[in-house]
């Protein structure tokens, strides 16, 4: 009888500790899953950017056949592509991609002046691929931001933030494309003249 009373508080304590441990494991695994989701979303942006790099030589070749004297614009697209491919760091990356987007828009605008180019089947197909690629890049960024927002909320929410702090889960940054694009719009007249 007495022995039972002695071990009872310890049993309760052990049970409580075990419950907290189980909860901690659950929270930890949840955070890991969301972190993986964010990393996966980030690599999806890379996949789509690479898709754009692969399309550009093809596009330039097609345009060259109809508008060979627009060499300057074509050169700029190629240069912007090569620059974007070699850049490191998130901020530099965003800047290089913005420059590439600008150069490509110019190239597509240029096509308006060449009816034969616009009627070319190959060019039409490429145009569809480009539209899609721009959409894919935009959607991949949007998805990354959505996932990061969810992950960051989980990170900050009490009491999960205790576990997050204990294991040093990093907060992720948003991919700020809106501000970069806004800058580009402001700079656009300067680039053209």
């Amino acid at each position: 009888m007495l022995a039972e009373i002695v071990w009872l508080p310890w049993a309760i304590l052990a049970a409580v500790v075990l419950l907290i441990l189980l909860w901690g494991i659950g929270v930890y695994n949840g955070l890991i899953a969301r972190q993986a989701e964010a990393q996966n979303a980030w690599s999806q942006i890379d996949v789509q950017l690479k898709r754009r790099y692969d399309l550009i030589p093809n596009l330039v070749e097609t345009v060259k056949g109809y508008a060979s004297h627009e060499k300057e614009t074509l050169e700029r697209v190629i240069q912007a592509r090569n620059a974007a491919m070699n850049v490191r760091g998130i901020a530099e990356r965003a800047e290089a991609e913005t420059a590439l987007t600008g150069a490509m828009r110019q190239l597509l605008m240029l096509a308006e002046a060449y009816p034969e180019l616009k009627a070319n089947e190959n060019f039409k197909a490429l145009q569809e691929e480009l539209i899609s690629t721009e959409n894919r890049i935009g959607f991949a960024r949007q998805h990354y931001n959505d996932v990061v927002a969810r992950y960051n909320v989980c990170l900050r929410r009490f009491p999960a933030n205790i576990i997050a702090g204990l294991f040093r889960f990093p907060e992720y940054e948003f991919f700020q494309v809106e501000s970069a694009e806004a800058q580009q719009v402001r700079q656009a007249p300067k680039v053209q003249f």
Partner: protein
Amino acid sequence: MGLATFRDLIAENQRKSVWLVVSFCIVTSLALTGLVLGIVSLMVPELLEVWFWPATVMTFVGGLIIAGLVALLGVRRGDRIVLVISRARPVHKVDDPQLYNVVEEVAIAAGIPPPQIYLIEDYAMNAFATGRDPEHAAVAITRGLRERLTREELQGVIAHEIAHIRNYDIRLMMLLAVLIGMVAVLADFLLQSMRFASSKKGLNRRGGKASGGLIAAVVIVVAVLLALVAPLVAQVIQLAVSREREYLADATAVELTRNPHGILGALRKISQDDAVLQVANRGTAHLYFVNPIRNYAARGATIFSSHPPIEERIRRLEALLV
């Protein structure tokens, strides 16, 4: 809204799917038990007097196993069944690069793998999605929809379907289509066999054996009731389940594409169109983008419509524009 809600939706759909499968199993095995006992009591009533409970339990358990297998088949192969019934054929990238691109883009926005794409050769404008989860999903669109929508509008419709996929609406909807189809077939079979049994053998045998005849009568009544009630219940579940879902998928489509104009333009065009989709039936109607079985004047006006009225969907989307 938006942050945690779609996970809640998925959880709710999982719960409803489990509930649907469980009630399907119970209803069908009860009906099967009724059928078997009814037939046995008519043919060999002596057997039931001795072995009533063992026979009942055994047929019920057997019915549960059969129903479970059917439900499993519904989950694993339901998408094929639905696609075959709808006469949809697969589309590859070379056939239609733009359609392919639009589907892949929106899948990226939703963070799911791109679903398989199917085309239905019909000039009515409609679309549906099916499958057991985002990894095993398909979208099907009609020829009429494909040819008459702009790229932007097509993106809106595909986003609506991909919203159904991401929210796991597709699994519940597919199970409803397949299992309700099964219950309807079973109920028809049951009713017909009852009619057959009572006309051929039932009446002249029942008179003599009082207790056996009573059991048989009870069993037959239960079986007939189940056969009548089950599809009706299923129908009501089906309706309750799909109307709110359409508004939600419209809203999610806007969230995914960040553009209300696409789906709005598509709905406006469809509301002007009055072609009827030949391949749709009562079992698959709730899967579609807009109600395929329609009589335009009355569409959506009654409680028994599987879809909310297009005008109301347009109105709710227009509210997002302001």
